[in-house]
C-alpha cells in the first residue's frame, strides 16, 4: 500500500465514513427533489432576502429595525456577561490544568514530595472538569438550567459561561505550557519562587495569544448568544423564531442581516487586533 500513502488512507477512510453516514441517515436525492411545496417555500423565503422589513408585517406598526437593534444589543449583553464569567472559569481552571505550575525545578524537598502527590491529582481533576464542561453544548446547559432553576434569563449567562469556560481553560493551559520557558528558568535561577516564576516568567509570554483567542471565542459567544434566544432570552434568535413561525419572512431577514452585521464587525475587529498584537 506504499503508493497510496498514509494521507491517502485517511482520505479513503473519510470517504468511507461519508458513504456510511449517507446510507445510515437515508440521505437520498428523493427527499431533496424540488416538489411544488418545497420550491414554493424556498422561493418565498429567499426572495424576501431582497426586501427585509422595516415595519412590522403584521400591521402592528412596530418598528422592526429598532427591534433588531434591541435584539442585537441584548445579544451583545448576554455574550459579554457569559464570556466574562467564562474568562474567570477559564483562567482558574486553565492554571490548574497547565503542567507549568507543578512540574519544573522544585524549590524545596518537602514541597517537591507534596507536589508529586497533589500535583497530578489537581491536574487530573481540572482536566476532567474541563472535559465535562466542554462536552455539553450550551443549548443543553440551557435546557438543564431551565429544568433546575426555572425560567430566568440568568440561565443563558451560565449556559454560555460553562462550555466556553471549559474551552478557554483547555486552550489557555496549552498556551501556558507552550509559552517559552527561558524567562521562567532565568527567574528561577535568580531565586524566584513558584508563583513569581509563573506570573512573571510564563504568563506574560502567553498573554497576547490568550487575549487573541479569548476575543475569537467572544465572536463565537455572540453567535451562541443569538441562538440562546430560542430558549427564553430576547436575543436575535428569539425574534427570528417568532417572525419565522408566522411567516413574516421580511422581518426574519432584517434580524438575519443584523446578526450578519454584528458578526462581521466582531470578525473585522478581532482580525485587526490579531494583526496588531500577535503579528507584531
Amino acid at each position, binding site marked *: 500500500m506504499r503508493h497510496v500513502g*498514509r*494521507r491517502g488512507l*485517511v*482520505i479513503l477512510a*473519510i470517504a468511507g*465514513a*461519508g458513504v*456510511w*453516514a*449517507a446510507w*445510515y*441517515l*437515508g*440521505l437520498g436525492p428523493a*427527499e*431533496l427533489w424540488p416538489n411544488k*411545496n*418545497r420550491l414554493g*417555500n*424556498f422561493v418565498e*423565503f429567499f426572495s424576501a432576502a431582497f426586501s427585509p422589513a422595516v415595519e412590522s408585517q403584521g400591521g402592528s406598526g412596530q418598528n422592526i429595525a429598532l427591534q433588531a437593534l434591541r435584539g442585537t444589543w441584548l445579544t451583545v*449583553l*448576554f455574550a*459579554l*456577561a457569559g464570556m*466574562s464569567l467564562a474568562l474567570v472559569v477559564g483562567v482558574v481552571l486553565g492554571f490548574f490544568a497547565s503542567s507549568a505550575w507543578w512540574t519544573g525545578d522544585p524549590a524545596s524537598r518537602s514541597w517537591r514530595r507534596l507536589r508529586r502527590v497533589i500535583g497530578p491529582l489537581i491536574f487530573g481533576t481540572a482536566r476532567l472538569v474541563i*472535559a465535562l464542561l466542554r*462536552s455539553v*453544548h450550551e*443549548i*443543553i446547559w440551557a*435546557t*438543564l438550567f431551565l*429544568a*433546575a*432553576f*426555572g*425560567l*430566568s*434569563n*440568568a440561565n443563558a*449567562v451560565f449556559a454560555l459561561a460553562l462550555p466556553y469556560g471549559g474551552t478557554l481553560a483547555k486552550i489557555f493551559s496549552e498556551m501556558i505550557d507552550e509559552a517559552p520557558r527561558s524567562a521562567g528558568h532565568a527567574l528561577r535561577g535568580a531565586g524566584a519562587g513558584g508563583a513569581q516564576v509563573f506570573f512573571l516568567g510564563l504568563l506574560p509570554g502567553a498573554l497576547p495569544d490568550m*487575549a487573541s483567542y479569548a476575543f475569537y471565542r467572544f465572536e463565537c459567544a455572540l*453567535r*451562541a448568544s*443569538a*441562538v440562546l434566544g430560542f430558549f427564553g432570552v430576547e436575543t436575535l*434568535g428569539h425574534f*427570528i423564531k417568532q417572525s*419565522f413561525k408566522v411567516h413574516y419572512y421580511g422581518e*426574519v431577514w432584517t434580524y438575519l442581516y443584523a*446578526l450578519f452585521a454584528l458578526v*462581521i464587525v466582531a*470578525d473585522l*475587529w478581532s482580525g*485587526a*487586533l490579531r494583526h*496588531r*498584537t500577535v503579528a*507584531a
Partner: protein
Amino acid sequence: MTPVDRDEAIRALRSRRPRNRFARWTGIVLLALTAFAWTRPELELGKLFRQRTKANVTRFLGEVRPYPLQEQPWDGGVFGGWLETTLGDGVGRRAVLGTLALSVAAICLAGLIALLTCLFATRNVAHPEPFLPGASPPTRWRTYAWRVVVWATRLVYIFARAIPEWIWAFLLLTLLGLGAWPAVIALAIHNTGILGRLYAEVIENLPARTPRALRALGASRTQIATVALYPAAQGRFLLYFFYRWETCVREATVLGLLGAAGLGKEILQAGAGDRHDEIVLFVLLGSALIIAGDVVSAVARSVVRRAR
C-alpha cells in the same frame, strides 16, 4: 549597579515596552461594557435567589437520580435494569449513531463544497493572469470581473458562517420538511463558510514557485490546481477538516432538539415528559460521544501531521 541606577534602568525599559493603543482601547471598552452589562436588569440575576428557585433545584437534583432508585438506596441491579429499559431495543445505539452520522455526513458535504469552491476565493488563482501577473497586461474589465468573483465567493462564505448552525437548521426544517437532510445541510452550510475561508487562505499562502513554473509552461487553472495546489495543501486541508468535524459532533448533539434524528431528539422527548433522569443520561451519552470524537480527531490529525 546601585539601586538608583537599577531603578533608572527598569524605568527606561518600561518606557520602551511595546505598547498598543488599539489593543488597550479594546480592553477598556470591553471592560466598561462588561461592567455595565452586569448591572442590567435583563440578566435577571435576582430570580436565582428566590425561595422558589431553591426548592426547584432540590426537586431537580432528586429527579436526576434514576426513577426506580428515587428515594431508594443504591442498587446496581435496579440501575442496570433502568439502563436496559431506557437505552435497550436499539434506542441508545440509534441515538448515538444517528448523531455521529449527522456530523460525518455534514462535514463531508462541507469539505467537498469548500474544496470545489475555495479557489474562487483566492486572489492568486481567481485572477486574469494566475501566478504570472504582468505576462500580458489584462484588460480592465477582466481584472474587475475576477475581483467580483473573489469578493462574491468570500461574501457568501461570510454569510454562511455568520448564521449559526442552529438557526440554519430551524429555517431549513420548515422549508424542506422533516428528515435528516435539513440538519445535514444546516451543519454543512455553516462549516462550508468556515472551511472555504480557511482553505482559500491555505491556497493563497502556498509557495508560488511550482504553480508559477506550471503557468509559464502554459498550464490551465484546473491543471495547476490538481497537480500543484491541492496536493501541496492536502495536509493543512485535512487538519482543518478534522478540527471542524469535532465541532460538528458537538452541534449534532443538539440539532435533534429541533426534531431531527439523534441524541437531541431523545432529550426533547424525555424533556417533554419531565423525565430528568433520562435527560441527564442522554446528555452524558452525548458528552461521551464528543470526547470520543475529540480523541479520534486528535489521532487522525497526528497521523496526517506525521505523514509527509
